[in-house]
């Protein structure tokens, strides 16, 4: 049967805010899914022209390549501090900091906690894959007990290496952050949940995965969006 190419309707395409640069993420990694849903969200909110992406150190170091947005590559762990500087210098910009577990929850612990504690009006996406991917698979602050990595070849042992740090909960107990949520990306249902999380800010009862929500429910859409993007991508401990 011949396909009528002229009359085909395009139902799926790359978000406009994403470039066609080839990804450097490993096959099977969920960064690609996350990058896409961020792109979709930027498109839907029509904020590409005033968004600045922060690309820190780690697997996300190339994040400045994926978006048709201004971007700043920064030092390891300092993303939330740089985001603070950008947002304070120009409050009209939407500042999106995309940080891994080593960046956000280990070397950048102080910057992460204090940017959150000041209530900086920024969006942090904390991507937790429990491993240092870029440097070859070393232990992350969020590696699970028993997890084998190149620096815990016999598995993470709590007596020697401590426990996986519950960073989202730490952020959630602060007074200033308006929205803290943890989402997962390992099946369609959860991907849809992560993507549509921005709607949940308007639901009076909240949803599973939301760790903290403060501020008026009628907050501006952009703020709601920003708040909803504070997603820790992690399994429930």
């Amino acid at each position, binding site marked *: 049967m011949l396909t009528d190419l002229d009359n085909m309707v395009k139902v799926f395409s790359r978000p406009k805010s994403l470039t066609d640069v080839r990804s450097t993420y490993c096959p099977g990694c969920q960064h690609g899914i996350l990058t896409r849903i961020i792109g979709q969200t930027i498109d839907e909110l029509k904020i590409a022209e005033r968004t600045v992406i922060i690309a820190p150190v780690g697997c996300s170091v190339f994040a400045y390549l994926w978006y048709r947005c*201004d*971007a700043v590559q*920064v030092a390891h762990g300092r993303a939330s501090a*740089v985001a603070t500087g950008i947002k304070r*210098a*120009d409050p009209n*910009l939407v500042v999106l900091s995309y940080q891994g577990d080593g960046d956000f929850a280990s070397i950048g612990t102080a910057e992460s906690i204090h940017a959150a504690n000041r209530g900086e009006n920024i969006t942090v996406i904390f991507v937790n894959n429990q491993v240092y991917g870029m440097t070859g698979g070393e232990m992350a602050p969020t590696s699970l007990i028993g997890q084998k990595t190149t620096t815990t070849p016999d598995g993470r042992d709590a007596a020697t290496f401590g426990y996986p740090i519950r960073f989202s909960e730490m952020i959630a107990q602060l007074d200033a952050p308006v929205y803290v949520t943890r989402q997962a990306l390992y099946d369609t249902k959860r991907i849809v949940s992560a993507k549509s999380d921005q709607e949940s800010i308007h639901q009076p009862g909240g949803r599973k995965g939301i760790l903290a929500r403060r501020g008026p429910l009628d907050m501006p859409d952009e703020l709601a969006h920003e708040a909803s993007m504070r997603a820790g991508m992690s399994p429930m401990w």
Partner: protein
Amino acid sequence: MGDKVLMRGNEVIAEAAIRAGCQCYFAYPITPQAELLEHMAEHMPRLGRTFVQAESELAAISMVYGAASVGVRTMTSSSSPGISLKQEGISYLAGSSLPSVIVNVMRGGPGLGDIAPSQADYFQATKGGGHGDYHMIVLGPSTVPEAGTLTMLAFDLADKYRTPVMILADGMLGQMMEPVQLPEPIDIASLPKKEWATTGAKGRDPNIILSFDLDPEVLKQMNLELQRRYREIEKNEVRYEELQTEDADIVIAAYGTTARIVKTVIRMARAEGIKLGLFRPITLWPFPYEPLKKLSARVQTVLTVEMSAGQMWEDVRLAVAERADTPFYGEMGGVVPTPRGILSEVKKYAH
């Protein structure tokens, strides 16, 4: 120009930064520069500008990196141990070509040291400090009024060459009060637009700020561009002062607070018939090698005096080579040399 006011060095640097159009200031408290931070805390919010007391020096310099990316004039300040922490950020600012001003009100070291005046961070400021092949412009004020004018200049040079600029002061200069005529504020709106800044990709391709490329050939080109700019700075921006060098047999090479003390020593020495002069680098990077080289050809001795074990001394010896003797006298640990102490050192070389 306004009337003269009596102000502390730290406050003059802060006020000059405000008048130079600094819109975002980030810092962490440390002695002996706390008054600078406190002046900014009081005045920046009133002007609708940004003051953030950061959680650490690492965060403060990273906030400067963020604000500089957006294209506003931005500054941080600290003292020696805090400046060590900022080295990561300074290397990134240099690598990403971000205009910014960093103030170091030096104190005794190494380690925690003390809170008394020192010049022992000269190597760190002029030879790198952080990783990679970079320089920043380093300005060494020697009086409180000059701290003000050099702070204004620092912001202009930072923008002109897209580079971090350091004001290298010391605890004496930071704490001392002097009459000063503050510079007139600039008109921020008149500053040239920074087309490279990450202000949102509206009606143009995205701007990217980075110091990174995995391809060595590309990174080499990025390095060559930095080096090209450094040669331009060396050509255009060397600044120094010569005092009573015309007939001098002995010249003291000194900067900052030490140079100010040497001016007293010159009066004392000349009263005793010793023909003493001063060569004072104002830009510590780029160092005034050529002017000192020329001067050294017509004197017997170039005595370097510093509040360190001999750091600028290395640059002095590079400039002078074998043309004159190059002895050194220094104090360390926060001890400030006295005019009498320097004079007795000078007498060793007077014939």
